């Protein structure tokens, strides 16, 4: 296996190439653009035998992917922020149509005002579309997850779309040494996509026509719910297979670090986890029992894993690089609701951090652990708090 120095965007493109995506329809947007450009290069040079549709919007990108998948092709696209939001209608469509489209989303703040920096509001806003959502911490994880998510999504008993995210710039533009698996390895792992039901002149069918309330609409939705539940187990199994082939895995849907005997745990999704790991190690050296639980998979949600953690630890802080106005951080509200039916629940506090790309430093993380220890000693001070807010200058 060869190591290459690449960033998250190139890793995404390599993932699509190694997975032998057959149709790519994508539209450029900062900071995802390098994915589109790299794939265009792969296709132009013949390294990737695929059709690349240079669509005129993200809405069309997703529509083309859904249609291509309906015609039996493996598809890939990538986007970010406004582009993902523009796709929203079609994201629901991809799920309803049971098309296992695979996408990479670079987590970028949403406008206005314009901001191209890291923020997870874009992908979290797609919570109810029925897409599997993965949040990567490293470039290697990004590449591996793209390949794995094809295998999960294309399982005949799942047939659901999925996206993997990269925090803008922290992952999309940071170069790391990445092991590029060989094509043979990936071919052995991921069989070609050959859906039985597809647009086929030998076997004509209508896809997605009208359904009445007394008919099958509700049941079709129930089948999606079941498929998403099955995906929980499948994600674990596929990761295990990948590990056997490559030696790499990422801790399942909830990636825990030094939580075995932890009193207080921070939860987070995305790249800030790397910073948190450093802080955990430092605090551990001081004898403080701290840990990290990284939410790697937001849909399906790792409810059982979070409950298992909740039974062991005293206080949990959930970091959100996004916010649901009128409620709280979305990761926070979901973690809290997963814990609700436990008999002995840990205290849970929400830290809203890094909005619009504001840096999450080791100092910031250190403050959060301090807060958690104060909560452990003296009870919950407040349920949610925006961290490192600036105050406008007066005058």
């Amino acid at each position, binding site marked *: 296996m060869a190591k290459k120095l690449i960033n998250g965007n190139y890793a995404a493109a390599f993932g699509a190439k190694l997975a032998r995506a057959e149709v790519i329809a994508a*539209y*450029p*947007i*900062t900071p995802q*653009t390098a994915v*589109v*450009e790299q794939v*265009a*290069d792969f296709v*132009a*040079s*013949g390294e990737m035998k695929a059709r690349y549709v*240079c669509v*005129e*919007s993200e809405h069309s990108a997703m529509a083309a992917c859904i249609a291509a998948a309906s015609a039996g092709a493996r598809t890939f696209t990538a986007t970010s922020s*406004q582009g993902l939001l*523009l796709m929203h209608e079609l994201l629901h469509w991809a799920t309803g149509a049971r098309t296992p489209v695979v996408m990479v989303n670079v987590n970028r703040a949403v*406008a*206005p*005002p*314009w901001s191209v920096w890291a923020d997870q509001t874009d992908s979290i806003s797609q919570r109810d579309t029925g897409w599997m959502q993965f949040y990567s911490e490293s470039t290697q994880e990004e590449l591996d997850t793209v390949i794995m998510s094809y295998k999960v999504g294309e399982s005949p008993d799942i047939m659901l779309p999925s996206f993997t995210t990269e925090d803008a710039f922290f992952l999309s533009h940071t170069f790391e040494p990445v092991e590029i698996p060989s094509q043979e390895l990936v071919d052995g792992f991921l069989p070609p996509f050959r859906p039985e039901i597809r647009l086929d002149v030998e076997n004509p069918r209508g896809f997605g026509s009208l359904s009445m309330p007394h008919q099958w609409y509700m049941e079709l939705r129930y089948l999606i719910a079941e498929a998403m539940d099955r995906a929980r187990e499948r994600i674990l199994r596929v990761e295990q297979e990948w590990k056997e082939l490559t030696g790499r895995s990422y801790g399942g849907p909830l990636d825990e670090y030094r939580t075995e005997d932890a009193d207080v745990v921070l939860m987070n999704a995305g790249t800030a986890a790397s910073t948190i790991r450093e802080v955990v190690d430092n605090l551990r050296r001081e004898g403080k029992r701290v840990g990290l639980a990284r939410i790697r998979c937001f849909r399906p949600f790792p409810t059982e894993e979070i409950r298992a953690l909740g039974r062991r630890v005293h206080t949990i802080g959930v970091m959100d690089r996004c916010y649901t106005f009128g409620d709280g951080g979305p990761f926070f509200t979901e973690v809290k609701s997963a814990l609700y039916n436990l008999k002995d629940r840990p205290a849970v506090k929400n830290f809203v951090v890094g909005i619009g790309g504001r840096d999450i430093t080791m100092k910031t993380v250190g403050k959060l652990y301090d807060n958690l220890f104060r909560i452990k000693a003296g009870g919950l001070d407040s349920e949610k708090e925006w961290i490192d807010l600036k105050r406008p200058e007066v005058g």
Partner: protein
Amino acid sequence: MVKTPVPAEENVAPGHMGCPGCGACLALRLALKALGKRTIMTVPACCWAVMPGVFPYCSIQIPVLFTAFETAAASASGVRAALDAKGQKDINVLAWAGDGGTLDIGIQALSGAVERRDNIIYICYDNEAYMNTGIQRSSSTPIGAWTTTTPVGQTRAWKSEPKKSGVEIMAAHRIPYTATACVSYPEDFVKKVQKAASIVGPKYLQVLSPCPAGWKSDPERSIQIGRLAVESTVWPMYEVEDGVYTVRKPAKKVSVKDYFRTQGRFRHLGEKDIEEIQKTVDAEWELLLKKETMTARK
């Protein structure tokens, strides 16, 4: 002093973030000279969404609504509707967008506004690619051009499709007024913008705006390159007013090759490729002249 119809008034301050030799920068400066202070503009995602500067600064000195990429025209329609609702009649509403925001992702909103006869001026500054995101093809990228999504390298996968014609699409909407322009001809551009402002209903201008970064050209030659585009009739200058075509014939004619030679984005093209393109350019020019003859008022 030379007399010029270009007003002295400035509505774009020099403190902007445009690149040296940016045609789009000059284009807006001229357009706002022509339209004056009683103008409200909408700007979707494009270079001009970044160039006015970082909050709290804004080098455009009229009210600007920054909007989503696909919404320049719909936003202008909304501003006009609000002004109408408030009974404010003496204000220009300008939609200002790049070629991608106009002819790709924004064409639905543009078509809708024009068909509804909304009273707006839509100006597309055409730098022939997505420059904000780093030079990807648009449907307005000319045939033969290199961009990052029409890569050249060994694969010779430069853009193989002809440029979409915004003005012809608008003419097909029976728009009251549409025209091409070029920043190298400031008096002409200013006059067209002023004419547009004097007409009630939708107006569409497309102003060729050389982009040194994207065209791989010398920043100090942007004006000259614009002239060569016009003189080679690669970028013909014409107006369509209520269906009547008026074509501006270049005083001197140069070849496509003369124009292409000034830009790295065409460097890979061989003699044969350029000959082919020359033939299409000539045929398009002939067709345009025929349209002028056919639509001439008797």
